[in-house]
């Protein structure tokens, strides 16, 4: 073998490595991935999702890695998860099944008025839609960006996959990031929107909710949603089915699996496959940055919408509602309710709002799903 032949051989081997095909743009993506992994590990910001998303971003941004493409017509590993999990809209629905099995709707059933707060908190979703259209996005893209303010990860993923899959990475990342940042974003808005007197409003203890009511709730809700917003039944149907399993008490094993192992498995697939959609060529443009900026405004307007709804309701109610629980209407369960509790305690150390805030918090999940259903109906 001559020296030239050895060099040719080495050259051939080099060409199959990532080093030879290196694109400097991926360094930016590594930085983004590292930031999310850091936030998940060091700051504990939504670690269950930001860690797999961060790793997904990291691993697909290496040249030649067989992760997110097709080989001889067969999907590669993460493409496989993405295709069957997200494109087929399975993962968000299974996550909702698990969430339903985890959720106690007692506070919402005891005070159903709070459902209206969940509707009011969708204000930002519709305002952001307008802003996004003005910026030159298509109507479908605008709807998928708007739903970020609903602070409901699975709903954002579901709607974006349906209407604007090209924005999935940016939208999911913005939704989960802002959900994690609820304790930073909401308190200043809550203080700005309420007076000291309003923050001290005490609410009557919630009535106990019977087992029968809790069992009836998922059936009634699923029925009403299926009748009025059928397009979102896959999400809400699974949510309510999970809850019925929990409340019925007769399928403990199924309920445990739904909220435990099944939920964990799909969370892994959701995280890595969402992260894997963000490769440098597609992600590095003005759109994701714009989505992040607008998502923040969206979130803030939704918070304002929830608080405003309580203030309007208080004009007609004899028993006033503490407007601090209005901010919990953005869903982000249970973080937003905890923020209401903490802000309430700052105003009055003996005024506990957590259970009261859980009502609008859960209503926010239903409200954001209803808003998503309205958008799906608009385009399908």
């Amino acid at each position, binding site marked *: 073998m001559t020296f030239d032949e050895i060099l040719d051989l080495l050259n051939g081997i080099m060409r199959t490595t990532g080093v030879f095909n290196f694109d400097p743009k991926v360094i930016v993506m590594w930085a983004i991935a590292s930031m999310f992994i850091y936030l998940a590990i060091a700051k504990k910001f939504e670690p269950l999702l930001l860690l797999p998303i961060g790793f997904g971003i990291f691993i697909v941004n290496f040249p030649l890695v067989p992760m997110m493409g097709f080989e001889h017509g067969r999907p590669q590993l993460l493409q496989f998860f993405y295709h069957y999990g997200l494109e087929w809209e399975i993962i968000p629905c299974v996550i909702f099944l698990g969430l339903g099995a985890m959720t106690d709707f007692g506070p919402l059933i005891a005070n159903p008025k709070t*459902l209206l707060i969940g509707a009011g908190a969708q204000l930002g979703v519709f305002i952001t839609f307008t802003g996004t259209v003005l910026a030159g996005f298509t109507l479908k893209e605008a709807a998928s960006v708007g739903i970020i303010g609903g602070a409901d990860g699975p709903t954002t993923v579901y709607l974006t996959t349906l209407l604007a899959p090209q924005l999935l990475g940016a939208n999911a990342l913005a939704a989960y990031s802002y959900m994690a940042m609820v304790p930073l974003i909401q308190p200043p808005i809550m203080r700005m929107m309420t007076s000291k007197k309003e923050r001290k409003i005490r609410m009557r203890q919630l009535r106990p909710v019977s087992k029968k009511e809790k069992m009836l709730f998922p059936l009634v809700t699923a029925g009403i949603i299926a009748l009025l917003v059928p397009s979102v039944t896959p999400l809400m149907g699974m949510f309510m089915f999970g809850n019925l399993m929990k409340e019925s008490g007769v399928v403990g094993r199924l309920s445990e699996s739904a909220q435990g192992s099944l939920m964990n498995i799909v969370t892994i697939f959701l995280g890595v496959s969402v992260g894997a959609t963000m490769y440098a060529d597609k992600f590095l443009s003005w759109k994701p940055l714009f989505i992040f900026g607008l998502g923040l405004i969206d979130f803030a307007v939704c918070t304002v919408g929830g608080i405003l709804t309580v203030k309007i309701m208080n004009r007609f109610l004899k028993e006033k509602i503490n407007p601090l629980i209005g901010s919990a209407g953005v869903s982000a369960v249970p973080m937003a309710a905890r923020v209401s509790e903490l802000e309430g305690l700052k105003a009055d150390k003996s005024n506990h709002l957590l259970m009261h805030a859980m009502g609008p918090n859960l209503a926010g999940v239903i409200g954001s799903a209803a808003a998503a259903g309205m958008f799906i109906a608009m385009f399908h």
Partner: protein
Amino acid sequence: MKKYMMLLIGLTFLFPASVMAEDFLGAPVIPGGQVLLKTHSRLELSVPKGHDEVLEYYKDALKNFKDIRIRDWKQGTHIEDDGSLPWHSITIVKGGTNETKITIVKDSWTWILGTLVLRFVGVFIVLLLLFLALTAAGAIISKSVARAEAKQSAAKT
């Protein structure tokens, strides 16, 4: 020459269809139509063709457009653009076999804002109905539970 020019201008006013552009705000316009109304935001025309033939023409003409949605309604076929084209919709009225009316409408903020407000109100209506259902169910169940408890305590005494 001047006479011919005048004749040409006169014909232009007499037969608007003959000078109609091939598109209206970027939306294709089927040839051979008679313009019924034309403003900056709306074009209405009538063509001597059946609904299905017109629909076929539009399906073919719009096949390369990305965000087009075709809705089959009872009164007609509604072709809508969900992207960012200058036109919003093309409506092909059903009914006539030899005469079909087509309406092309400009994309407008009135439609976008109108549909958004309606949908926001729609979210309220959904949750309001749920509120009413829960209140009713809660009242009925609470009463039945209270009645059962009263029976039990009466039986004990």
